[in-house]
């Protein structure tokens, strides 16, 4: 056991394992690139849906249930399914990651919108704001803390799951896990897992810190 952790520490700290096209630095960049792109696409889909149903109060039932359904989808299954249907590309990976991220974004955005005080919304209309002005000047800023929580949760889930890119032969930190498993190299498997966890936790801390900084004027 001690040997294993010593080897793990050596692997994580040696300059050789960080450099090169299959070095940690490169894999980390790939991993972040997949995760950020997938979350961005998910946000482009999920934010408008959440804002729209929150603003109009219509379609919430359908959207929230679809979200729960999306949450229940097995991610690896989805990758395989899209892979079988569309062939080998990054597409299956992105489809699966986006499907994973959208529900968290939709439900949190919607929750943020419904948490806006009806009196405030009423006052905004009563002062003569049009629908889009109420949405962008009042509802959206007030829902923002919860929206950002949704984005943060989505990103972290995606970071933790982006290892599946390696499952269909692409890069990212999942490479170490899958290659390690194939080569029966436990140090590499463990190293990949630890790196994914550290990245996820670091992003979580960074983003929640940013949230606190941005919304320090708000009451709880």
């Amino acid at each position, binding site marked *: 056991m001690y040997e294993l952790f010593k080897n793990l520490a050596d692997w994580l700290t040696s300059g050789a394992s960080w450099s090169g096209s299959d070095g940690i630095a490169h894999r980390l960049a790939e991993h972040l690139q997949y995760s950020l792109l997938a979350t961005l696409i998910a946000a482009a889909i999920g934010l408008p849906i959440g804002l729209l149903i929150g603003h109009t109060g219509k379609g919430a039932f359908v959207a929230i249930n679809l979200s729960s359904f999306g949450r229940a989808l097995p991610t690896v299954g989805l990758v395989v399914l899209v892979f079988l249907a569309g062939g080998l590309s990054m597409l299956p990976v992105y489809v699966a990651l986006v499907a994973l991220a959208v529900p968290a974004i939709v439900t949190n955005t919607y929750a943020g919108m419904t948490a806006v*005080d009806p*009196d*405030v919304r*009423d*006052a*905004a*209309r*009563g*002062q*003569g*704001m*049009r629908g889009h*002005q109420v949405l962008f000047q*009042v509802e959206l*800023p*007030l829902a923002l803390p919860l929206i950002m929580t949704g984005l943060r949760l989505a990103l972290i889930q995606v970071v933790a799951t982006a290892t599946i890119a390696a499952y269909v032969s692409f890069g990212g930190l999942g490479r170490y896990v899958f290659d390690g498993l194939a080569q029966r190299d436990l140090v590499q498997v463990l190293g990949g897992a630890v790196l994914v966890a550290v990245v996820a936790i670091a992003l979580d801390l960074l983003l929640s810190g940013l949230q606190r900084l941005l919304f320090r*004027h*708000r*009451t709880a």
Partner: protein
Amino acid sequence: MIQFDAVHKRFPNGTTAVHDLTLEMPEGGVTVLVGTSGCGKTTTLRMINRMVEPTSGTIRVGGRDVTRQDAAELRRSIGYVIQQAGLFPHRTVLDNIATVPLLLGWNRKKARARAAELLETVGLTADAGRRYPHQLSGGQQQRVGVARALAADPPVLLMDEPFGAVDPVVRAQLQDELLRLQQELSKTIVFVTHDIDEAVRLGDQIAVFRTGGHLVQCASPAELLARPADDFVADFLGAERGLKLLSLKTLADVPRGPAPEGGVWTLVLDEANRPLHWASKETEIPLRPLKDTDSLLAALDESVASPTGLIVRVDADGVLTGVSSRDDIHEHAGRAHTQARVAA
């Protein structure tokens, strides 16, 4: 002027909120809508700025049918104050007040300058302008709500139970301030409340609604108190109708005489002839000097509390002008009642 002509409002669920309402709210006056909850007073108010659309009938503000105007533009031309203020929690107080000017396309600097001016008008410091709404007390938030409604200097002000959520002391202060502001600004104000004392205090005209959206009576406070149209209105006005009527009459016409000398009680003055208290050999009893603008109700109250039955009258600077007896006040109060009944 705001005119309701045969206005009816039925909600989709079948309840009638306002029933065949025809009512005029005079320009530059305060019209108070009162009634029990669910009587349609708030719906009536909200139809003026189209927050609620009437089912039938017409509403005109300044002669123009409100339903023929763009709803958002109409609302920008009408001040709107609601209970709990409804301030935007993510904007500073100053930016809250500047809302309508900014919607109207004023530049930010001009809108902020106007907001700063209004902050002073409603009795808040410049420091409060930099804060966020949650950092203010309930009463201060209501002041900001009023300032926000006044920002673009609209001729009409709609106030939906604006002082309903603050404690009685602050509420009385806010009422005083509103009366003071109204003297300066002469807005056409429509004010919803379920508090009859507030209605009597603020209203030039009071419209009493009954459940089902029926207007029962619309009259001046004095007329309403002296001659309620039916038992519903009388009940709503409460048991101390007579005393409330006295709260509308001032002390100005009550005769006064010199302060008594040589009795058990002596009126003690300071060197500037301002009354301090009543004194006997054994004790001192505090007094509340009354000005001519104080009400007969306050005079009655003070005469009961006074050991001599006399009220002490002062001018605007607090200098003694004389005293009036309990009998003088009673006689005047009785006359006020008779006058109100006959005149109304």
